[in-house]
C-alpha cells in the first residue's frame, strides 16, 4: 500500500469514495424518473461555469456549481411544463453549455488544453486540500438530503400527480433535486470529469436493480457498488497508471456486465432446476371470474 503513502493519492481516494457514495444516492431518483441522462446534460452546462470561473479568476468549482444549478433549475422548469418541445430545449441548453465552456476557457489566461481535459475527464490527483474539503462538505450534504428525504423524493419521482394531491411541496422537492444534481455533478467533475459524471450516478443503480426487489435495497446496493468502484478504481489507476475517472467508470460498467450475466445465468439455471413450472397461481377460482361476467 505504499501508493497511498503519497498525499495526493490519499486525497484522490477520499474524494473518490465520497463521490462514489453520493452520486448513486442522487442518481437513483433520476433513474426512477427515467431521466438517466440528465446528469450528463448538467455536466455540459457546468463547463460554461468552469469557463466563467477561469475567465474571472475565481474558483472554477464555485462558478460551476452556480451555473450548473441555474441550468438544472431551467431544465426542471421546462420539464414541469411538460411541453413536447422540452426535448429540443434541453438539447439547445446542453450544447450551448459545452460550446460556451470551450469558448470561455479558450478566452481565459489559463487556456491550456490540459486544463480543459482536466475538467472534461477529471484530475482528482491534482485536488488541493481546499477542494477536498469542499467535496467532503457538499458530498455529505447531498448524501444526508437524499437519505433523509427518501420517502418524499421517492413519492415525487414515482408519481408526481399523486404527490401533488398528497399536499407534498412538489415544486420545492423538484428544485431541490435539480440543485443537488448540479452540486453532485460539480464535485464529481474533479474525480471522473464532466463527461463521465453521469456514469457514476446511473451505472451503480443499473447494476443494483438487476438483483434487488425494492427501492431501499436498490439505493443501499447502488451506494455500495459506487463506493467499491471508486475505491478500487483509485487503487487500480495508481497501479496501472491509467486515467482515474475512466478507470472508475470502466470498473463500474464491468460490475454491471458481470451482474447482468450472473443474473441471466441464475434465471436460466433456476428454470432448468425446476422444470415442472407450476400452473398459473390459483387464487382466481373460476366461479369468481364467471360471476362478474356481464349478464347476457
Amino acid at each position, binding site marked *: 500500500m505504499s501508493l497511498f503513502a503519497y498525499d495526493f493519492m490519499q486525497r484522490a481516494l477520499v474524494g473518490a469514495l465520497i463521490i462514489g457514495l453520493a452520486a448513486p444516492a442522487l442518481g*437513483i431518483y433520476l433513474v*426512477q424518473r427515467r431521466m438517466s441522462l440528465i446528469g450528463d446534460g448538467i455536466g455540459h452546462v457546468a463547463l460554461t461555469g468552469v469557463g466563467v470561473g477561469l475567465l474571472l479568476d475565481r474558483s472554477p468549482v464555485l462558478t460551476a456549481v452556480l451555473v450548473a444549478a441555474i441550468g438544472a433549475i431551467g431544465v426542471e422548469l421546462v420539464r414541469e411544463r411538460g411541453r413536447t418541445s422540452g426535448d429540443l430545449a434541453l438539447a439547445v441548453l446542453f450544447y450551448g453549455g459545452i460550446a460556451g465552456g470551450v469558448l470561455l476557457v479558450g478566452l481565459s489566461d489559463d487556456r491550456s488544453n490540459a486544463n480543459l481535459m482536466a475538467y472534461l475527464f477529471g484530475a482528482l490527483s491534482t485536488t488541493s486540500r481546499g477542494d477536498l474539503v469542499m467535496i467532503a462538505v457538499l458530498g455529505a450534504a447531498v448524501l444526508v438530503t437524499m437519505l433523509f428525504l427518501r*420517502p418524499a423524493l421517492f413519492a415525487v419521482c414515482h408519481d408526481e400527480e*399523486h404527490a*401533488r394531491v398528497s399536499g407534498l411541496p412538489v415544486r420545492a422537492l423538484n428544485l431541490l433535486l435539480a440543485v443537488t444534481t448540479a452540486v453532485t455533478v460539480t464535485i464529481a467533475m474533479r474525480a471522473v470529469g464532466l463527461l463521465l459524471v453521469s456514469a457514476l450516478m446511473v451505472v451503480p443503480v443499473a447494476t443494483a436493480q438487476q438483483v434487488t*426487489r425494492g427501492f431501499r435495497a436498490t439505493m443501499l446496493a447502488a451506494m455500495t457498488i459506487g463506493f467499491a468502484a471508486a475505491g478500487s478504481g483509485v487503487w487500480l489507476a495508481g497501479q496501472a497508471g491509467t486515467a482515474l475517472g475512466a478507470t472508475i467508470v470502466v470498473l463500474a460498467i464491468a460490475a454491471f456486465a458481470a451482474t447482468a450475466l450472473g443474473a441471466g445465468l441464475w434465471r436460466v439455471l433456476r428454470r432448468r432446476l425446476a422444470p415442472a413450472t407450476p400452473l398459473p397461481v390459483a387464487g*382466481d377460482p373460476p366461479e*369468481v*371470474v364467471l360471476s362478474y361476467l356481464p349478464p347476457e
Partner: protein
Amino acid sequence: MSAVVEVSDAVVAYGHRPVLGGVHLRVAAGEVVAVLGANGSGKSTLVRAALGLVPLVRGRVEWFGTPLPRFRQWRRIGYVPQRVGAGSGVPATVAEVVGSGRLARRGVLRLPGRADRAAVAAALDAVGLAERAGDPVATLSGGQQQRTLIARALAGQPEMLVLDEPTAGVDAVSQAAFADALAGFARDGGTALLVAHELGPLEPLITRAVVVHDGQVVHSGAVPAPAGHHALPDHDHVHPHGPQERAAGLWGAAP
C-alpha cells in the same frame, strides 16, 4: 349533508379547445358518486380540475368548505390517478409504493413509524394483496398494480376517495377485490367520487351517477341504463381515442 367537494361553474380549456363548459358538481359526505361519460366527454378533466391538477379558466372549487387555493388538509383525500401500471424506472416493492400514501398524513420531514406500517398493512389487506407486500410492483398483473394504487390511497386513511378510471382494463378478480375494498370504505362512512367508463361490479355501491357529455353535466341521479348500441349483446366496447372524438350519448344522454 355537508358538502365534501363542491365545484361551481367550472370552465376548463386545453389551449383554445373548451373541455368543460360551466360545470356544477357537489358531493355530500357519505355519497358514492360515479362520473360517467364517453372518452373525451370531460369526465376525467372534471375530477382533475376539482383536485387542482388542471387550472380552471373560470369557476371555483371548495373542499370541506375551504376554497381550493387555501385548502391544505390533503390528508383527508385519497387519490388514485389514471396511469398505466404502478412501476417506475427503479424497482419498488408493493409496500414501498403503498407507503407513499402515508406522506399526506405524516408530512415530509418525519420518518415512518409503527402507525404507518400498520396502516400500510391494513390497506394491503383491504385490497387483498397482503401476501405481495414484499414483491416488486412491476411483477404484479395490471389489475394487481391498480389495486396497489388503491391501497396507496387507502393507506392515508382519507375521508374521501377520488378515483380516475380505477377499473379500466382491470381483470374480473381485481374488479371484485376493488369493489369489496370500496364497499368497506363506504360502510365505514367514507365518501367516494370515481370516474368510470363502465361500472361492472361497482354498480350496487353507487349512490348517484353524474353523466358528463360534451363538457356538460347532462344527468345526475340513478345510474342510467345503457342506451343505444351500448346495450346490444354483441357490442364489443371498442371506443376510438381520438382527441376530436365527439361520440354521442353512450350513457343515455341525448346525442
